[in-house]
């Protein structure tokens, strides 16, 4: 830990970029291997098709849930790293951003619990036998939809996080202002998940905007880090 504390701002920014990359990789891999879409768009197909898909691809389903949890864990680490990076700009706003992000992660992680329920329901447990096949499939769909709702609620918190983060980047002087503006706009986009008709209509654009904005920030941190001289100036270090 002492070694980490002694790292320069550009080096820490690159570590932030690496953790960001790990988040992206695990989140995208989880979405790819998952046989049931649990993202903001929700599942497609009827209850029977979804239940059968989970039974036929159980290992992939479990891997998707595990990768989703890993990506959440990386985002919690990322929240802490961003707090450290932007603390010199505004300690309080950095803390606010970190809390929004961590609350979003906690809500998202709790949503993953709903993805484990279908395995229990379809696993042939004795208490599940009191339900008909139709009812079991409907219960599976209900839990998958619950996960989607959890993702929507989490996205609203992430929207608030990105709005504050965008402002911090804009004010920082050690990262490009354009990235801050993009991140803030993406944050506003995620906030539309409070009004489902708007978010449904804009879903594709919101996802593209979110991936571009966060992808750019990740690449910038990974490749270029931050301007160490300016970071030190903002932090009041010689």
């Amino acid at each position, binding site marked *: 830990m002492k070694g980490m504390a002694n790292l320069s701002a550009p080096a820490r920014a690159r570590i932030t970029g690496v953790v960001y990359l790990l988040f992206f990789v695990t989140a995208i891999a989880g979405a790819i291997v998952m046989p049931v879409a649990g993202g903001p768009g929700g599942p497609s197909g009827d209850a029977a098709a979804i239940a059968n898909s989970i039974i036929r691809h159980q290992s992939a389903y479990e891997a998707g849930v595990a990768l989703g949890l890993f990506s959440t864990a990386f985002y919690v680490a990322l929240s802490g790293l961003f707090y450290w990076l932007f603390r010199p700009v505004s300690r*309080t706003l950095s803390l606010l951003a970190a809390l929004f992000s961590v*609350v979003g992660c906690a809500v998202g992680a709790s949503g993953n619990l709903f993805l484990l329920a279908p395995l229990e329901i379809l696993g042939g447990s004795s208490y599940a036998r009191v339900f008909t096949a139709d*009812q079991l499939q409907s219960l599976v769909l209900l839990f998958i939809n*619950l996960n989607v709702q959890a993702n929507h*609620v989490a996205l609203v918190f992430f929207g608030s996080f990105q709005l504050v983060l965008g402002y911090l980047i804009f004010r920082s002087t050690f990262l490009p202002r354009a990235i801050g503006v993009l991140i803030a706009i993406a944050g506003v986009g995620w906030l539309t998940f409070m009004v489902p008709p708007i978010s449904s209509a804009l879903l594709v654009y919101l996802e593209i905007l979110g991936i571009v904005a966060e992808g750019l920030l990740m690449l910038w941190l990974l490749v270029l880090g931050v301007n160490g001289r300016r970071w030190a100036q903002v932090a009041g270090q010689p």
Partner: protein
Amino acid sequence: MTATSELSAQDTQRAYARAAGLFYLLVLAFDIAGLVITSSIEGGGGFAASAGRVGASEVVYRLGLCLSLLGSMSTIPLAIGLYVTLKSVDGNLALTALLFRSAEAVIGAVGIVGAFAILQIYLAANHAAAFDANQLHALTVLNPLAVSTDIAAIFFCTGSTIFFYLFFKTQFIPRMLSGWGVFASVLYLAMWFANLVAPGLPSLVQVIGSIPILIAEVGTGLWLLIRGIRL
């Protein structure tokens, strides 16, 4: 610390105290509006009648849930505002209270996820589904929002008690107000614990138990917003 930077730190503290006052009122407004909208639509008269009313007013019901979500989100800036205002009194206690209020926001948000699921069940009752009305009603009884409200309230009360205690140690707001806040928070905590241990507290007791904390929060919110803190 120079005189100028000390003044600047005090200005920041005053600004965050006013922001906390605003968010005290916003959190209450969002939570109460959300609760009034959803419960007035659900109403009484059994599951089928509630499902029919929710189905007919789906957009307004969703608006009520979104207001509850805004209440949960606004808890975070409120807690940050109180933390910045009070960390000079006792940084560790202020941070503890901040974490309790953040945990309250998480539990509240998870409860809202459950409330959206209950909405799905209400909507399913209005058209052909795999479950009959009685079975759907049984599923709504598992409403996570009801349980999460109890748990979130306990985290809220603990955070609120600590923040009011920190105010009480200072002259930032009148001691009568901060002392009342400590009393009301502890009373509210006791009520929710009692409800967990022996569920089914009469609603009249719940309403009466909520009045002192309502007075404390509205009073403190207005005081912080209008008068600010005395440093």
